[in-house]
C-alpha cells in the first residue's frame, strides 16, 4: 500500500516536473549554446554504441529468419519483413533503451552531483535559472537527438541485413533497398519517428527529474543514475505499448 502511494506520488511529481518544462521552455533566455553542446554530447556519446547494436541486430535478425523464409519459399520477402520489423519496432525501442542506459544515467548522475555539491543552489542564488540552464536544455536535446539516432540505427540495421542477403543470397544493395521501400510506407515511418520523440523526452525528463530532486548526498548519486535508467527503460516500453495501440486504431480507420 505504501509502495502504491509512493508510485502515484512520484508519478504526480514527474508530471509536475514535465509541466514546468512546458511552462518555461517557451520564454527567454534561451540557452542555445548549452543546448547545442548537449546535443553534440548525446550524439558523440551514443553514436558508436547505437551503430554497433543496430548493425548486429540487422545481421542477426536476417540470419535467424533466413532458414524459415527459405522453407516457405518466401526469402524474397526478407527486405520487406526485416525493414518493417526494424523501422517500426526494433530500431526505436533498441535505440531508446541504449540511450536510457547511456544518456539517462549520465544526466541523472551529473545533476545529482551538482545538487549535492550545491551547484544548483549556487545558480539559483546568483539569479540565474538553473531549471532553464540544466533541465530545459537537456530534455530538449534528448527529444531532438533520440529520433535522429533512431533513423541512424534503422539505416545501419538495414545495411547489415542487406549485407547478409548480399553474401548469402547474392542480392544487390540496390535491389534490397528498393524492396524495402516498396513495402515500407509513410504510415510505418511516421508513427515510429513520433514515438521516438516521446522516448527522447521521457529519457531526458526522467534523468533530469531524478538528478534535480536527488537529496541523498554523494552516495545517492550512483543510486540516482541507476533509478533513472530503470524508470526510463520502463517508460520506453509503456510508451511503445501506447504507441502501438494508438497506431492500431489509425490503421483500422
Amino acid at each position: 500500500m505504501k509502495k502504491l502511494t509512493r508510485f502515484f506520488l512520484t508519478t504526480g511529481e514527474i508530471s509536475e516536473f514535465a509541466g514546468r518544462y512546458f511552462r518555461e521552455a517557451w520564454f527567454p533566455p534561451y540557452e542555445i549554446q548549452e543546448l547545442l553542446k548537449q546535443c553534440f554530447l548525446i550524439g558523440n556519446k551514443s553514436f558508436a554504441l547505437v551503430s554497433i547494436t543496430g548493425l548486429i541486430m540487422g545481421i542477426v535478425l536476417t540470419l535467424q529468419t533466413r532458414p524459415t523464409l527459405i522453407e516457405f519459399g518466401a526469402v524474397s520477402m526478407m527486405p520487406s519483413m526485416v525493414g518493417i520489423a526494424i523501422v517500426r519496432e526494433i530500431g526505436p525501442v533498441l535505440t531508446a533503451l541504449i540511450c536510457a542506459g547511456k544518456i539517462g544515467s549520465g544526466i541523472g548522475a551529473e545533476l545529482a552531483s551538482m545538487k549535492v555539491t550545491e551547484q544548483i543552489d549556487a545558480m539559483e542564488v546568483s539569479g540565474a535559472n538553473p531549471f532553464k540552464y540544466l533541465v530545459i536544455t537537456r530534455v530538449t536535446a534528448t527529444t531532438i537527438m533520440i529520433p535522429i539516432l533512431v533513423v541512424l540505427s534503422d539505416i545501419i540495421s538495414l545495411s547489415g541485413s542487406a549485407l547478409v542477403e548480399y553474401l548469402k543470397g547474392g542480392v544487390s544493395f540496390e535491389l534490397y533497398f528498393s524492396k524495402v521501400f516498396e513495402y515500407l510506407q509513410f504510415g510505418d515511418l511516421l508513427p515510429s519517428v513520433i514515438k521516438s520523440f516521446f522516448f527522447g523526452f521521457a529519457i531526458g525528463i526522467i534523468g533530469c527529474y531524478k538528478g534535480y530532486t536527488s537529496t541523498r548526498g554523494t552516495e545517492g548519486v550512483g543510486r540516482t543514475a541507476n533509478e533513472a535508467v530503470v524508470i526510463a527503460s520502463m517508460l520506453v516500453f509503456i510508451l511503445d505499448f501506447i504507441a502501438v495501440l494508438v497506431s492500431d486504431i489509425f490503421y483500422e480507420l
Partner: protein
Amino acid sequence: MSYDMQHSIDYKTAPVIDIEGLYKAFGSNRVLQGFNLKLWAGENLAVMGKSGSGKSVLIKCIIGLVRIDQGKLLVLDQAVDQLNLRELDRLRSQIGFQFQGSALYDSMTVRENLEFPLKRHPLKQVTEKELELLVTEALEAVGLLNAINMMPSELSGGMKKRIALARTLIMQPKIILYDEPTSGLDPVTAKEISLLINEVQNRFHTASIIITHDLACARISSNRMIILHNGINYAEATYTQLGTMKDGVIQAFFV
C-alpha cells in the same frame, strides 16, 4: 586593536539584515528557535556555533533557499518570505553567497564560472568588454588572475574558495554571506582568506555575515560575534569581550 578604525560601520540607519524571533524546524528537528540578529551597514559579523547548530540553515533562510517557519526576516528592508520570484531575484542580485563547499560549476572554466551569473542576470546587462573587465577585476581582487582558464578540478581547496569569492564579488553585492570560508584550509591559507575578507569589507564597503568554526578567522575578520547555541543567539559581543566571559558554552569555543 580595534577594527572599527579601518572603516565606518553605520549604526544609525536601519540594519541591512534584521532578524527577530526566527523559527525553523525540519520535521521534529527544531533548528532555529527564536533567533535574533541585526547586521549593520559596513559591518562584519561572525556567527559561531557547533556543527549542526543551524548556521548554514540561518544564511540559507536569509538568501531564500530555505523557507522560514515563523519570525521577522528583513533583508535590505524587504521581508524575504513574502517576495515573489522576481523580487527575490532582484534582492539576491545584491547579496553574495559563498557556499561551504565553494560550489564552483565543475563543467566550466574559472572564467565561465565568473561570467555565468553576470551573463544571465535579468537585471544586469553588460557588454562583452565590460564583462572582460569585471572578470579580470574580480580575479585580481582575490589574487588569482593566472587561474582564469583553469577548470575547478585543477584548483586547490584554498583557490576554490578564492574563486568562489571572486564569483560573488563580480555581482558587486551589498551584503556577503560566507559559509565557513576557512574550513579545510591550513592555518596560513586560512589567515590569507581571513585577511581577504577584511580587504573586501574595506574596499567594497560590504556588510558580511561570516559563519565560522575558526577562532583566528573570527578574530581577524569580524567586528562583532554571535554565538549560535540551541537555536538562539546565545551571546553577542566583540571577540575580545567574548574571550573574557566566564560562561562554559562560550569558553568551549575559545580553547
